[in-house]
């Protein structure tokens, strides 16, 4: 009986040609790019990964009921963007953004509170024209050099250096106290929080605990990880420190404010911060637009979650007539407390 011989070379060529199709069989197909699929994808991502639905008491299913009927196949990108952005803003979170080529959505926490700083007033009456500019710090003496006033407008930009902190220490080490003004400081690098804290940290102490969303359930988080101040500097300011805050003190500024709860000689003056203690990550929709929302949560040393804002030790709101009187009563209150 004659057996039929196969041609192995031909067999290999057939296999090779069919390979690229092979991987497509194994991989899931790409999600279609329609208004409905984009909406559903975003809603589901937030539903399963956003860290604060339960904390903020948001019924995400009811949000679906509100916004899903607004989606229709022929809608324009602009209309789709507005629906998605409105849905995201129902999270009431400054760390939530939708980014398209033509617009970026935002939820402006700073507008939720009263105006609590007059930058021109700070510059003319407190920093004055001879203020020092050291890295991101604008600073000068106030109250006959009894107090050091340090304005820190952003945790972004460059990393705070030891040289800068040494300079601040040497300039204000003999003061009764220093004021660190982070009003309207929208945040930035969390690493700068630890650097700034090292100005008055002489030991290792628990600052806060953090967790990462680890599953679709409301309480699915990784184990708490404790974060300590571990940088004991040679030059540490030993006097009292007042930190000025308002609703515009967001993200890294709220981290800094939360950390002050771990220090006996540091107190907060002003308005509740904007919060934003969840770290936002990023993602992409089937149409290419990107988004971000918070996927971690932070617990202060007193066990509280201050995602909605860190309350001050002393609530002081800027007087409506501050511009006329030329007095920033928030700074004055802090200075009074430091010199008591």
């Amino acid at each position, binding site marked *: 009986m004659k057996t039929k011989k196969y041609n*192995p*070379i031909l067999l*290999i060529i057939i*296999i*090779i040609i069919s*390979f*690229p199709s*092979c*991987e497509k069989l*194994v*991989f*899931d197909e*790409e*999600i279609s*790019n329609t208004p409905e699929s984009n909406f559903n*994808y975003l809603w589901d991502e937030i539903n399963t*990964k956003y860290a604060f639905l339960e904390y903020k008491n948001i019924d995400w299913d009811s949000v679906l009921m509100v916004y899903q009927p607004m989606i229709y196949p022929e809608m324009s*990108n602009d209309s789709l963007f507005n629906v998605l952005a409105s849905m995201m803003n129902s999270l009431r979170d400054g760390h939530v953004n939708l*980014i398209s*080529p033509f617009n970026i959505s935002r939820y402006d926490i700073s507008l939720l509170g009263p105006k609590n700083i007059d930058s021109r007033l700070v510059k003319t009456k407190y920093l004055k024209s001879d203020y020092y500019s050291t890295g991101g710090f604008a600073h000068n003496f106030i109250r006959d050099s009894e107090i050091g006033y340090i304005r820190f407008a952003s945790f972004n930009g460059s990393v705070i250096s030891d040289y800068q902190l040494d300079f601040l220490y040497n300039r204000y080490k003999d003061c009764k106290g220093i004021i660190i003004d982070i009003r309207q400081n929208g945040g930035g690098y*969390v*690493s700068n929080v*630890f650097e700034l804290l090292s100005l008055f940290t002489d030991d290792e102490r628990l*600052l806060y605990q*953090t967790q*990462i*969303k*680890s*599953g679709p359930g409301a309480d*699915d988080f*990784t184990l708490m*990880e404790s*974060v*300590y*101040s*571990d940088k004991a500097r040679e030059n540490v300011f030993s006097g009292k420190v007042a930190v000025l805050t308002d609703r515009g003190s967001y993200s890294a500024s709220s*981290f800094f404010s939360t950390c002050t709860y771990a220090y006996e000689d540091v107190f907060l003056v002003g308005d509740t911060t904007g919060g934003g203690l969840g*770290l*936002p*990550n*990023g*993602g*992409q*929709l*089937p*149409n*290419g637009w*990107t988004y*971000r929302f918070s*996927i*971690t949560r*932070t617990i202060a040393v007193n066990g509280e979650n201050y995602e909605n804002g860190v309350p001050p030790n002393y609530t002081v709101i800027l007087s409506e007539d501050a511009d006329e009187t030329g007095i920033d009563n928030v700074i004055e209150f802090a200075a009074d407390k430091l010199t008591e």
Partner: protein
Amino acid sequence: MQKLTPIILLLFLSTNIKATPYRDSSNFQGNYIEIGAGLGSGSLRDMGTSPLFYTGLLPSVSLDYHKYFGKNILQFNVISYNGIYLHFAENQTYSSSATQVNAELIWYRQLGFLGNTAIQHQYGISIDNYTGIRTNQSFGNAGFSFENISSIHAKYGISRMLTLKAKDKKFLWLIKYHRKKKQYIANFNVGLPIYSLFYRQGYTNPGNSTLDYVDPFEGYETTGKFLSGMNTQLAINRILDNGNMYGFSYNWSFLTTGKNDVNQLNISHHAILFHLVFKFN
């Protein structure tokens, strides 16, 4: 690199002068070092950050060591892909830079000796480690991605010697020349990852850490998967008289965490490489 090229070529043509010229199967023994370079393409989707497939054009280099002893073949190879993955959507281009390296240690057992005219079958096992580093600025804090995948593979290969006999020929039907006898070895192999360990982002990717120290791998997890992909290579090399070789290979591989994975990772590569193979005794 321009200065190195003639040196490599000179080495390629001159080394192994003392080597026994390749004549038959039993002489296909010893140590070989292979360097390769070429161009690859790849597609990638990491649903931890995006449901979209990104397509990349990836220059590729490889370095292999083969040791033939008895009916055994020991092989260690490293291949790297470096380039940019792109996705085009609604007049926008989204890009992700990538560096990917795969190292594999393989042991084959041959059925018969290489060099016989019949097809030779090889069965074996391998362990490999794949590392991928990607950055995509569009994803903010999740812009940095890292994955490390270690697998144990079942391997199968077939090889065949091919000979073009000496012949008088005409170039363009005009110029007479004598074609020398040429010998080639064609090889095809396939590997199936029996079990793989994926070390990559967990349920979410916080990226930039809220810790007081830098930890780009915060929230990363290790998960195990069975039969997570496949890798193959089809290669043909011309064997020179001194035992050295040169040739081309087509490499294809894919990896997936599976359709049921929340943050599916799908990676595939296609690459055509040119090789120089040096024989060492």
